[in-house]
């Protein structure tokens, strides 16, 4: 035990008592439920409410990479579309570029499989796909540069 610290004020003494009481607080779930019931809470309802709240919050949380990726993609899309990457390109050029990028994103075989039937896709769909792939590859390149740096 370290050198003793004598409580000098009521606040310090109160804090010491509170911390001591916390040390003997509820530990197992049976005790937890007992405390909740005694205070008038329904343990099952409470548990279900917290679970639902957590699920909802996680699904829209900025910490969720899908949420932040979608946001980033939207931002990047506006940049890419603004830059007019697909403008002036022929349909064949777009398909060729898509195939090249899919090869580069070799670690995403699911992507490659999903977009095999490029010939059947509309011009609009091809344009959107090219935008997304440009975004993903540029992100992958930035990540590689960061790792090497």
């Amino acid at each position, binding site marked *: *035990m*370290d050198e*003793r*610290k*004598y*409580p000098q*004020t*009521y*606040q310090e*003494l*109160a*804090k*010491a*008592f*509170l*911390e*001591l*009481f*916390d*040390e*003997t*607080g*509820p530990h197992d*779930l049976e*005790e*937890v*439920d007992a*405390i*909740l019931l005694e*205070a*008038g*809470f329904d*343990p099952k309802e*409470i*548990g*279900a*409410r*917290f*679970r639902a*709240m*957590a*699920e909802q*919050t*996680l699904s829209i*949380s*900025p*910490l*969720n*990479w899908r949420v*932040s*990726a979608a*946001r*980033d993609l939207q931002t990047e899309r506006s940049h890419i579309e603004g830059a007019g990457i697909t403008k002036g390109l022929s349909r064949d050029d777009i398909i060729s570029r898509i195939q090249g990028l899919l090869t580069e994103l070799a670690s995403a075989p699911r992507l490659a499989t999903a977009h095999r039937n490029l010939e059947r896709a509309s011009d609009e769909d091809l344009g959107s796909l090219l935008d997304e792939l440009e975004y993903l590859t540029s*992100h992958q390149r930035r990540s590689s540069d960061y790792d090497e740096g």
Partner: protein
Amino acid sequence: MRDALDPKVYKQLLEADWEDIGKRLLAFAIWRAQMYWGFINPETVLPKGFGLEDVVQKVIEKTLRGQRRWDPEKGALEPWLKDQIKSELDALAKSWGAKHEQPVKLDDHGEELWDKIAAATHEGDKEQTSHTANPEALLEEKEIHKEEELASRLVSAVYEASEGIPELVDIIDAVQNGVEFKPRYLADELGVPISEIYNSVRRLRRRAVSARKDIENG
């Protein structure tokens, strides 16, 4: 993706059992809050209009949104969440007024602010107060006074709870003498088994909560 959390941390938050954690946090909050306010039930309104479940929900939501960042390198999730709840409850306990008072609005100038200061501190007529005092300094002084008052009430309840019970008095004496407030250190100091300390501390707390309830209920 600068805003995104470390995937491992996010995964841990995603996989945590929030039903279990939520219940444990609420039980912990009740455990602590009873020392401040005595009587707690689902309808209890704490300062600033919060209920106890709101406090726990706020802590969980802020954690899951990344507004408060849990770092697994520094410790497990549940103890960290409990520390957050302690901070919230301590802040509420120190805030202006008890459960039935409205918080004073600092941006309100004029009648409401002066009336509340005068009424709360019994400092005479409004006219005199407004010409001689800085409102923010007065409020700050009042806040400090309230913190001390709160602490003193809590300590009084603990003293009252120990009256006539030697083993409880021994625990209080040990804490006052600077023994670290963990059961194992108290056990060493008093030469009794940890289980006995554990039971005595719980008994002390139970009696102190009862004393707090009596105070709160007038």
